[in-house]
């Protein structure tokens, strides 16, 4: 009797809990596989994350293609924006890599706009932020990390190892400094990927909480989180840009370190 009562009450509580709106601001980071594809054991399933990556790629390309459809000496609005984006990245590359940075321009340019549009398309309601996935940012960061190692050894051979020995340091300090340098070097891809992923995740979590409250609170209370969510969306647009910018700048800095071995 008692047992059944508690069972019923537990069941009722569970049902009530299920019926009530439950706050889960992390729900929209859930990767959902739409199509499972795994040829030869390699999982290349298409998920919402992958889909929005594609959409971002398509958006970048479509924007630039449309903006530059009829390049004119006197640019129109869209062409001006496209050229401004191009010159912005060229400025970053020139400033941070400088001499010999030209071959990396297409990569840096694509990287910036890939990250930027992944950040921005994630702000569309019901979309997915690919850059809020650690594995996505880590893939990019590791690619950059291995590229910088490859470039370092390709350009300087074994002398690249001198990168870990700060010049003008007393020999006594070397056993301390070299491990620190190596650790800081190895931390580069971690910080690069976690910075972007954490910023995106945090921003979207805050937005999720704000949206939850503005949707579930009675109208007297809902306007406040709703107003905040509007403001915070604008902040997120800015953060999306800033994070893409930082990601790009650091990429340039890492490539520069490998190309020009002054330390």
């Amino acid at each position, binding site marked *: 009797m008692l047992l059944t009562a508690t069972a019923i009450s*537990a069941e009722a509580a569970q049902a009530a809990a299920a019926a009530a709106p439950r706050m889960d601001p992390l729900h929209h980071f859930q*990767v959902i596989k739409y199509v499972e594809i795994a040829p030869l054991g390699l*999982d290349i399933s298409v998920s919402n994350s992958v889909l929005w*990556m594609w959409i971002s790629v398509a958006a970048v*390309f479509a924007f630039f293609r449309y903006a*530059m459809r009829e390049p004119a*000496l006197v640019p129109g609005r869209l062409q001006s924006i496209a050229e401004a984006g191009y010159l912005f990245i060229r400025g970053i590359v020139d400033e941070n890599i400088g001499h010999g940075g030209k071959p990396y321009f297409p990569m840096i340019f694509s990287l910036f706009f890939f990250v930027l549009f992944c950040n921005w398309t994630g702000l569309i309601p019901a979309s997915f932020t690919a850059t809020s996935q650690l*594995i*996505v940012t880590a893939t990019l960061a590791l690619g950059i990390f291995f590229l910088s190692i490859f470039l370092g050894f390709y350009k300087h051979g074994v002398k690249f190892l001198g990168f870990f020995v700060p010049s003008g340091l007393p020999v006594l300090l070397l056993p301390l400094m070299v491990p620190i340098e190596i650790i800081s070097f190895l931390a580069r891809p971690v910080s690069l990927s976690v910075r972007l992923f954490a910023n995106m*995740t945090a921003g979207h979590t805050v937005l999720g909480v704000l949206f939850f409250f503005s949707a579930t609170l009675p109208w007297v209370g809902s306007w406040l989180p709703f107003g905040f969510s509007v403001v915070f969306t604008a902040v997120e647009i800015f953060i999306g840009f800033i994070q893409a910018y930082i990601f790009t700048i650091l990429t340039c800095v890492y490539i520069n370190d490998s190309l020009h071995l002054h330390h």
Partner: protein
Amino acid sequence: MISSAYAAAEGHAQSSGLPQFESSVFASQMFWTVVSFFVLMYLLNRYVIPAINDILDSRSKKIGEDIQQAEKSRVEAERVLANYRDQVERARQLTATTLDEARIEAAAIREQALAELNEELNKKKASAVEEIERTRIQAMEQVREAAVELAMLATEKLIAKTVTKPKAESMVKEALEHMEKNRIGMH
């Protein structure tokens, strides 16, 4: 029942971790990140970057050409201006020399005319003086003759006896000399 509720709770607890750390979706996302990025890079590098490069290059070329053209025009304009100034200067000089020449010529002409006029006037004056002298002499002669005749007539009438002409002439001469003297004395 309790166990089922427990299982549900456990399931809930499991899904409440960050979905980003669910390793089952890592491989596909890694693969597609790489593919998407390289596709984007290929597309941009193939279609977009060259277009922007071209237009920026042609614009800077155009600007350079325009500046060069403007520079050329400026030099040309300066040349034309210098040429024009030169012409004006030359014309001014020409005018000045012409004016000077004309002035000198005019002065010469005037001088000549004046000289001619003077000469003519002098000539006229001389002839006039001569004429006057001649006329005076003539007049004097006539007056003298008239006086002689008058004296002869007067004498004839007065003394009813003719005075011989030489006598009368000497008398008149005397009288005339007297008169002349008086005239000179009056001067």
